[in-house]
C-alpha cells in the first residue's frame, strides 16, 4: 500500500505532514485563547503526535526480512539523514543537554563537540564500508568478517550492554514527559511511553521505524527551534539568536559576578529534593581543565562510531555513495538542534537571572516567587524548589533549584510564552525520546533474533518464524527496559554517557580494524571486545565504589580505559595467532571498493 510510489512522493508526503502539524499548533493556540486549560493542551499535543506515529507504524507493517531489518535498502539520502538525526537525538539531547550546559557550562559543552565530531569518524572509517558489506546488524559484520559464532556472540553482548543502558534512559525520558504532560504517576507513565514505542516498531521493524523517525524529527526540530527564536525576540535579544546572543552571554557573566556562587552547606542541601541542583558553575568561561573537556569529547566521539543503532541506519540507504552523503545530512540535521542548545540555556538563564526582565526571579522576594503559577506547577512535579537558606527573604542564585531535565521543558513557561509552546515542547521531547528508544530496542532485538536465533541457534528457520521471534524479543526487551527505567537508578544524561563508554570499550576497535587492518583475526577481535568491555566495566565499578581512578578518568569517561585495553589486546592476540585465510583477506579487499556485489546477499 505504501511501497514504490510512496518513496517517489516522500517530499510531498512529509510536506503535507509538516503543514498539517503547523495547522494543529495554530488550532491549539486558538483553543488556548478560547479558554482551553493548560492540562488539556498538553494531553492533546502528546496524544495527537503519538497517534500519528502509531498510524505510520501500522501503515509500514511488513512480512519481508529485508524490509523488516533494513527498510528494503531504499531510503533516500536526505530522508535517511533526518531519520538518523531523530534516531540519534534522544531524550538526552532534547531534554537534558541544554540543562547540563545550563548548570555546568563549558565542561558539558564537550558533549556538543563529541556528539557531532563522532560523525566524521562514522563517515570516514565505517559507514560506507559496512554498507558495502550488506549486513543486517552490526554483529552480522563482526561475525562474517572475523568468522565464527564466538565473535558474533561477543559483539551481541557488547551491543546489548551498551544499547540496553541507553534505552532505559530513553524510556525514563518518555515516562518523565508523559507523566508531566498527561498528569499521571511516573511508574504508570513509563509503560504508556513503552506502549507508544512498541506501536511504532513492532509491525514494520526498520521500515516502520524509519518513516516514524522522519515524522518525529520534524516535530522535534520545530519544538526546539520555535521557543528559542520566540524567547530571543520576546526579550529583544535579536531575531536570529545564534548570531546575536553575545551581549546576553556577557550579561550573564556580569550577573554571575554580582550574585556570586555561594556554596550551600550540606545541612541546607539535605532539604532539597533529590536530583535538583542550583547553578554553581560559570556560564561561558573555560572552567574545566583541557583534559576533562577533551577526554569527555573523545569518549562521545568514539562511542558515536560504535553505537549499533546509529550504524544500522546507514544499512538502509540504496548505495555506498548515498550512505556516505547521508552521514553528512544526518550531522547537518543534528547541527540545527545542537547549535541551538547553548542558545536555549543562555536564554533560559537570562530570563531567570536578569532583574531588568519581567521574568527575572533572582533577587525577588521568596514569597513572590512561591506564588508564581509556573513555579507551583513544577514544584508539584518535584522538578523545582526554592528555599530561603540565609533567611534574608529574597531569592539568591544558590537558593533556586531545578532538575536538569526541567530546563528545556519549563523555559517557555518561565519566559512567559503561551502554554501552547510548552505543549509543543513536551511533544518534541516525547518524539526525541521515542525515536531513539525505537532504534535501540530494534537494534537489540534484531541482534538477538538475527544473530543469536537465526545465525547461531536455528539457521533453518523460515522467514515467518524469524519475524515472529524478532517481534516477541522486541516486546520482551521493551518491558525489561521499562521495568528498570521505573527504578530510576541513574539520571538520563548519566546513563546515556555510560552507554557511549560501553560501546566504545567493546566495539570501536573491532569495527574499525575489521575494515582498516587486514591482519586482524577472530581471536584478536574476541579478545578486543570482551577484554575491552570487562576492563571498562571494572573501572566503572571501581570508581563508583570509591576508587580514586587514574589519569583523571572519571565514571563518565571510563571508555578510554576500555578502548585502550581493547586496542592493545586485539593487536597482541591477532599477531600471536594465525593470519586470516585468503578468503577473508579477499573479502576485506572487496569491502574497500564501492562497486560490485555486497558481501552478504540481498536476502540472508
Amino acid at each position: 500500500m505504501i511501497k514504490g510510489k510512496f518513496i517517489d512522493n516522500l517530499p510531498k508526503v512529509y510536506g503535507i505532514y509538516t503543514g498539517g502539524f503547523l495547522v494543529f499548533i495554530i488550532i491549539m493556540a486558538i483553543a488556548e485563547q478560547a479558554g482551553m486549560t493548560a492540562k488539556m493542551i498538553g494531553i492533546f499535543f502528546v496524544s495527537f503526535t503519538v497517534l500519528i506515529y502509531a498510524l505510520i507504524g501500522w501503515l509500514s507493517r511488513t512480512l519481508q526480512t529485508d524490509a523488516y531489518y533494513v527498510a528494503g535498502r531504499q531510503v533516500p539520502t536526505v530522508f535517511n539523514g533526518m531519520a538518523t538525526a531523530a534516531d540519534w537525538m534522544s531524550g538526552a539531547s532534547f531534554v537534558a543537554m541544554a540543562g547540563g550546559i545550563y548548570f555546568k557550562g563549558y565542561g558539558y559543552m564537550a558533549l556538543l563537540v563529541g556528539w557531532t565530531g563522532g560523525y566524521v569518524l562514522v563517515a570516514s572509517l565505517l559507514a560506507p564500508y559496512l554498507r558495502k558489506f550488506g549486513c543486517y546488524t552490526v554483529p552480522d559484520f563482526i561475525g562474517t568478517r572475523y568468522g565464527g559464532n564466538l565473535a558474533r556472540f561477543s559483539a551481541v553482548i557488547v551491543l546489548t550492554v551498551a544499547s540496553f543502558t541507553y534505552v532505559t534512559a530513553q524510556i525514563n525520558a518518555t515516562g518523565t514527559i508523559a507523566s508531566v504532560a498527561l498528569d499521571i504517576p511516573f511508574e504508570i507513565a513509563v509503560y504508556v511511553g513503552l506502549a507508544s514505542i512498541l506501536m511504532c516498531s513492532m509491525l514494520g521493524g526498520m521500515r516502520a521505524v524509519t518513516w516514524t523517525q522522519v515524522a518525529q524529527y520534524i516535530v522535534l526540530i520545530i519544538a526546539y527551534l520555535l521557543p528559542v527564536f520566540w524567547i530571543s525576540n520576546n526579550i529583544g535579544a535579536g531575531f536570529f539568536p545564534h548570531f546575536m546572543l553575545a551581549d546576553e552571554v556577557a550579561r550573564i557573566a556580569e550577573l554571575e559576578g554580582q550574585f556570586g556562587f555561594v556554596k550551600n552547606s550540606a545541612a541546607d542541601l539535605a532539604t532539597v529534593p533529590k536530583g535538583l541542583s542550583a547553578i554553581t558553575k560559570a556560564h561561558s568561561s573555560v572552567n574545566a581543565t583541557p583534559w576533562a573537556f577533551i577526554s569527555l569529547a573523545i569518549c562521545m566521539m568514539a562511542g558515536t562510531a560504535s553505537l549499533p543503532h546509529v550504524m544500522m541506519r546507514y544499512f538502509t540507504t540504496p548505495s555506498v555513495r548515498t550512505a556516505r552523503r547521508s552521514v553528512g545530512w544526518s550531522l547537518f540535521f543534528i547541527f540545527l538542534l545542537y547549535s541551538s542548545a547553548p542558545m536555549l540555556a543562555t536564554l533560559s538563564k537570562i530570563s531567570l537571572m536578569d532583574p531588568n526582565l519581567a521574568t527575572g526571579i533572582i533577587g525577588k522576594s521568596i514569597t513572590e516567587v512561591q506564588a508564581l503559577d509556573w513555579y507551583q506547577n513544577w514544584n508539584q512535579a518535584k522538578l523545582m524548589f526554592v528555599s530561603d537558606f540565609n533567611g534574608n527573604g529574597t531569592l539568591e542564585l544558590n537558593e533556586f533549584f531545578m532538575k536538569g531535565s526541567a530546563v528545556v521543558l519549563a523555559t517557555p513557561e518561565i519566559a512567559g510564552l503561551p502554554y501552547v509552546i510548552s505543549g509543543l515542547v513536551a511533544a518534541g521531547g516525547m518524539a526525541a525520546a521515542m525515536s531513539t528508544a525505537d532504534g535501540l530496542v530494534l537494534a537489540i532485538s534484531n541482534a538477538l533474533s538475527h544473530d543469536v536465533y537465526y545465525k547461531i541457534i536455528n539457521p533453518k528457520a523460515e522467514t515467518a518464524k524469524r519475524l515472529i521471534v524478532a517481534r516477541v524479543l522486541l516486546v520482551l526487551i521493551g518491558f525489561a527496559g521499562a521495568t528498570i527505567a521505573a527504578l530510576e537508578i541513574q539520571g538520563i544524561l548519566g546513563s546515556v554517557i555510560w552507554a557511549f563508554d560501553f560501546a566504545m570499550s567493546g566495539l570501536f576497535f573491532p569495527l574499525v580494524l575489521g575494515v582498516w587492518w587486514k591482519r586482524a583475526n577472530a581471536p584478536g577481535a574476541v579478545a578486543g571486545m570482551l577484554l575491552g568491555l570487562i576492563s571498562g566495566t571494572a573501572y566503572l565499578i571501581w570508581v563508583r565504589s570509591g576508587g580514586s581512578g587514574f589519569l583523571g578518568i572519571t565514571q563518565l569517561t571510563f571508555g578510554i580505559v576500555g578502548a585502550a585495553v581493547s586496542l592493545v589486546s586485539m593487536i597482541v592476540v591477532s599477531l600471536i595467532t594465525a593470519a586470516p585465510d585468503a578468503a577473508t583477506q579477499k573479502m576485506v579487499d572487496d569491502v574497500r571498493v564501492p562497486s560490485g556485489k555486497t558481501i552478504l546477499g540481498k536476502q540472508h
Partner: protein
Amino acid sequence: MSKQEQHWEKTRNLLFITLAIWFIFSIGIFLFGAEMQESSIRPFGYPLTYWFTCQGSLAIFVILIFWFAGRQEKIDDEFGFTEREGDQ
C-alpha cells in the same frame, strides 16, 4: 601496484587528511581553551572557545563530511569503482 592497491592508497591518504582536520577542531584547539577564550578574535561577539564549542567546530564537521564524501567519490570514479545500477 594493482589498480585496487592504488585506489586504497588514495583512499587512505584522504582518510589521514580528514582525520587531521577532525583532530584539530575536536581535540587540538581545546588544549588551548583558556588561552583562546582571552583572544581578541570574537566571532559574532562570543568569546572564541565558547563559540567553537557551540557553533564553530560543529559547523566545520558538517562541511568536512561533505567535502570528504565528494573527494572519495572522485577517487572512486577515477579508478572506475563507482557503483553501477544493479550492483546491490
